[in-house]
């Protein structure tokens, strides 16, 4: 990530704010980052991901929740793997073939419900994005 000053807390008052924050993060990516997204159902994880992909010149309408497919791949400015582990309660890393995905060193890997990975050790530093709040409430977003 180019701009380390992005690592702080944010308050997003609307879905548009969440999308815009994603865009800001996306603009700072240089390829090879791993982004772990945490937050409840409907917190805005996929929306933030849309923002990131928007910044990477990808058609955001094609960015959809991978809870069914587990892994979406987008050939944007960088190759982006978008994972969602919500329905995988055990052996999540195996189920999505995470080791193989991480072999692509320049690919950006975005993982929703990364808490399902438990003690998986990533080969490099990760960016953690935690989204708190749901429904119509404002979202507190912690990027670290």
């Amino acid at each position, binding site marked *: 990530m180019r701009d380390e000053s992005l690592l702080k807390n944010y308050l997003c008052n609307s879905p548009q704010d969440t999308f815009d924050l994603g865009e800001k993060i996306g603009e700072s990516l240089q390829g090879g980052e791993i982004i772990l997204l945490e937050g409840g159902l*409907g917190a805005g994880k996929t929306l933030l991901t849309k923002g990131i992909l928007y910044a990477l010149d990808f058609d955001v309408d094609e960015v*959809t*929740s991978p809870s069914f497919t587990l892994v979406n791949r987008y050939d944007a400015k960088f190759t982006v793997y978008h994972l969602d582990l919500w329905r995988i309660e055990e052996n999540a890393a195996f189920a999505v073939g995470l080791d193989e995905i991480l072999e692509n060193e320049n690919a950006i890997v975005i993982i929703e419900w990364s808490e399902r990975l438990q003690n998986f050790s990533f080969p490099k530093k990760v960016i953690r994005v935690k989204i708190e709040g749901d429904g119509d409430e404002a979202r507190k977003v912690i990027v670290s």
Partner: protein
Amino acid sequence: MLVLGIESSCDETAAAVVRDGREILSSVISSQIELHRPWGGVVPELASREHLAKIDPIVTEALETAKVDLKEIDAIAVTQGPGLIGSLLVGVSYAKALAFGLEIPFVGVNHIEGHVYSVNFENPPVQYPAFALIVSGGHTNLFYLPEEGKYKVIARTRDDAAGEAFDKVSKMLNLGYPGGPVIEKLAREGDAKKIRFPIAKISDGRPDYSFSGLKTAVARYIRENNIEPVQDGGGISQEIKDLCASFQDTVVRSLLKSVEKLADELFPKTLIVAGGVACNGYLRNASEKLGEKLNLPVYFPSKHLSTDNAAMIAAAGYFHLKNGECAELTMNADVTMRLQNIEVEDNELKKKKVRYKL
């Protein structure tokens, strides 16, 4: 023309022999649902290995059932995408090798187009222009077909697919996987008017779908009303049945609302409703009612043809073969294959990088 269809895009290995795009001589489907059930959904790694083990016996069975010798097959149609890469590759590689060995043509078929052709066997011929509402675990698209083989997306989901919303709600309530059939069953004993879930409005005014908000509304309702997920083997409360009925009603109303709105502008002569979710009886009834209201014939596939199958792939492939299309051996699986083949004004807007509005 005898076409051998092969489908392996997700979790069903299927083969079929179809004559002239309309007559099914055999259609064999091997479902992996039991393999994936403990995971609450398809696991790509397991799926591709299972396809590899099943594809040869399934093709053999399809030929035997059809009482057709491999030498009598005129062409092969195989699902090229969209789907899971490992799964698609099994079918595509198998089909290429077989076509090469037999020295016959083959074509790659878009899986979604296959679903459009799934109504070809048991209904009168489709009249154009037509609408095709394709709803499944991974797809929710409404297409406009001015003529056969031409597709324009006129509504699609912005987030979750409709079938996915069923699976998610089912998981929240611990009702099991896949969610569609169990929710439909419970909904029959529930009151669809009990809970008023909102139909998502897309703020840029396009008639697109959004099921993510509905999923969140259901999660919130469960939490605020302290609804406990169903215990394994335990009884199911009226509250949960009402929730299932209200949720299902909202999905179906949402799907058909855009159909009705767009039918007023584009005057289709046939409405095709297909894909895995087309099995849902509530969607079928509501679609038929809408068809009566709009004086629009509605075609569904039978249950067997609603799930992923190879007969529909053979039928779609027949159309392309008849038009002289034929794939090269360099053809590859295409995970995100698009069906839309009519240029739309959207592309112009995208080039200008118009600000994305939620």
